[in-house]
């Protein structure tokens, strides 16, 4: 008696009623959009988000399972001892919080990019950044981005931020985020 029930349930789950079929998507709007087929697309989008303030676009770039932001130990020690690293949900929240103040958006975005590692499906890129916010505050440091391709799309898996030894007293990107935790 149980075996037919089991088989019936298996058939339902595997093929039968398509309970978990995806919802129908809206037709693309035709607006220009990046397809993230290149890892540079992800980094370009991060730059655009911090300039335009469209923080809702960030979640789409971060890996659903394992995204990790890692701040500099010294920033964490000075400001937020318990929060040096955080996950996608916190990163999204912090970015929304930062960019909801239009004065904190980036007016001048200067980045020197350096590829640290490159293989068929993953890339690591280092940005030495010097950002100037609309309120005049400068943000300087070094960020290391690890990007991984899942099928034809790249996602940001890890964002490590640290002090630039050649910088002065400017805050880092990580410190800027920690101030909004």
């Amino acid at each position: 008696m149980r075996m037919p029930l089991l088989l019936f349930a298996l058939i339902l789950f595997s093929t039968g009623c398509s309970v978990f079929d995806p919802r129908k998507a809206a037709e693309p709007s035709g607006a220009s959009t990046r397809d993230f087929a290149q890892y540079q697309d992800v980094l370009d989008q991060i730059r655009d988000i911090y300039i335009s303030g469209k923080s809702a676009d960030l979640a789409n770039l971060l890996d659903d399972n394992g995204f990790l932001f890692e701040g500099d130990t010294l920033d964490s020690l000075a400001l937020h001892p318990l929060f040096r690293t955080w996950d996608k949900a916190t990163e999204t929240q912090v970015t929304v919080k930062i960019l909801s103040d239009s004065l904190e958006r980036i007016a001048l975005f200067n980045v020197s990019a350096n590829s640290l590692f490159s293989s068929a499906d993953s890339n690591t890129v280092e940005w030495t950044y010097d950002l100037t916010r609309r309120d005049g505050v400068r943000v300087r440091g070094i960020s290391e981005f690890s990007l991984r391709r899942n099928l034809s799309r790249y996602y940001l898996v890890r964002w490590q931020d640290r002090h630039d030894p050649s910088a002065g007293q400017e805050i880092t990107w990580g410190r800027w985020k920690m101030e909004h935790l």
Partner: protein
Amino acid sequence: MLKVLLFCLFLVIGNAWSAEGTAPDIVPPVPFQGIAVDSPLLDLGAGYEQGEFYRKYMVDGALSRAAGPRLLLLDSMNLMASPQRNTEQVSASSRSVFNTYYRVNSALKAGIGVSQTMNGLYHSGKSVWLSETDHERLSLKAEYIPLARLRLSLNSGLQLSGNRTESVDLRDAGAYSDLNGWLSSPFEGLKDYTLSVSDSRTFVRNNDFVQGLYRFGGVTRLSDKSDLALAGGYSILKDRAYFTAPYDKSDYYADLNLRYLASRAFFHLSRNTMDYPENSLNSRKGFTFSGGLNPWLSWRKLSWRGMLSYSSGSSDFAYGFPLLSSPGPADLPAAQLQLSDETLQEVLFHWRADYTWFKGYTLGFSRFQDMRRYDYAYSYFDTKGNPVKNPDTRDLLYDNDTLFIHAPARDTLTLTLSRSSRLLNFLDSSRSAQNRLGTTYQAELSHAFYSGQYAYTRNSLLLSVNEDSALYDSIVSSLTKKHPSQFFRRREFYTFTDVNCVPFFRAREDSVIVSGLFGIQEDGALVYGRTKTFVKNTVYDERAFNFRLIKVLGTLLSAGAGMDYSNTVAYTFNEFPLPSPSRGVSERLFRALFSLDDNFIQDYESVNRDFFLSLGMNYKKSSMRLELKDMQSFYRNSMIKDYLMINLNVRTTL
């Protein structure tokens, strides 16, 4: 509704299957922390570490000794200083504890002590603390263990705390208490249940702190074949430290785990909140529910194991604010945060069947399905009346079928064939141009050869092809001028050998390991027509080589050395090939083998090279460990990383 019915159906069936027994999962209680150890000890250690951006110096020591028949001394000290390279900042911490205990009777110990802890960031150029926090304590302590199932400890007293910056020097006084308790159930029917409590409180201005962990759980034996595990807990953390934004964090959870032989049903419920009293806009809460089944079935040579689970989770940002459909300027920051309020529903379904075949050959098949829905339900209208929403609402469907055959000998041959697909489906029109369906087919043949006397070697050959198509191909191709479908093909050979017959490296703990990887991956467009055509545009040549030598001489000496090398060369298609440059033998061979004509030009070469050396020595109660690592990376012929990492640790116990 239907999925709930199906879920219940599986719950009923799952309990009815029978198999041999396994122990249930139990959530562990908080470990009991006593206040003193009885064994005499003198332990001294020192360490040095150099990373790419810092150096770190560490010294620590601990002393525990009897000063009479009932008197015990327990002192310890840790110092750490870490200068950041190329700046004048130094992070430093220290901890010193001096305690004396009196053993009143076999169950009760009482003691007094003083302690000091400090950590901060120092600017050596200006000779000031950029930030520094220290705590000094005068303590009264007691530990009471009247029964094996009841343990209590209390540590309380007076506390002085200081907080310093360049311009501020604050010093405050107050009290603190740490309470630890552990009780296991005295009742026969609930004999594996424990209640554990850990509660720390500090009442000092600018340093108020509360941390509590309260857990209860255990296992009830229902019969010889079944049991029920229950666990629940609550934790709270309230921090009002001077350098930290004040916050309150809390977590609740409950677990239920029902086992009947090897089949299980499980439920998990948890809720967490993070509140910022000074800025409730940052507050966040999350909720997770999951439940599922692990049925197990065995009949003659066939075994079947399944897993079905359903999870539902949500994270709400700025949850103390009402959700408004038309927020004014004052409510706009909260509305923008709430735009990221996310719910996730996930169903996981996995089963695997194994059949032991002729003469022990095993034939197996597994199916895995992961179905997720990410929803962003909240939206609002801005001041101009335009709708604002999060466009990331999406479905993610992943499934995998794998067939494998294991040969039964010590020299194992395994063939694995698998198919996976992944569908990413954004619902919003601003995202749906990115919707894609990818399918991967993979075949792997691996062989392991065991010879305890000579070598252990494992080799595998992998072929993987992936076809990935945009669901709205015409729009993507017109926008990006790219082909809507892409194709990836990877061929890989991996080898690993542990040689046991090299003179001086023949002991069981010694190793001589050589491993290597050669992979070629080709990416390009897939053009659909009468036949599918692969238009190759990038080729990656990946090579890696690792070598390890490990020598162990009893407990006295362990030494290891090795190197890791990896090299990736990328070639891209160029419509207008450059005049053929002079090429080495290796590149000419590679091009001939993988049909790369002059249209493919070398785009970049990426090289990583690490050398490492480790040395560990133990002599009587002293030990020393040294690790050296030299790392170099090159990209497009320029060096982008070159540094030496050193880690030295010396320790002695008297």
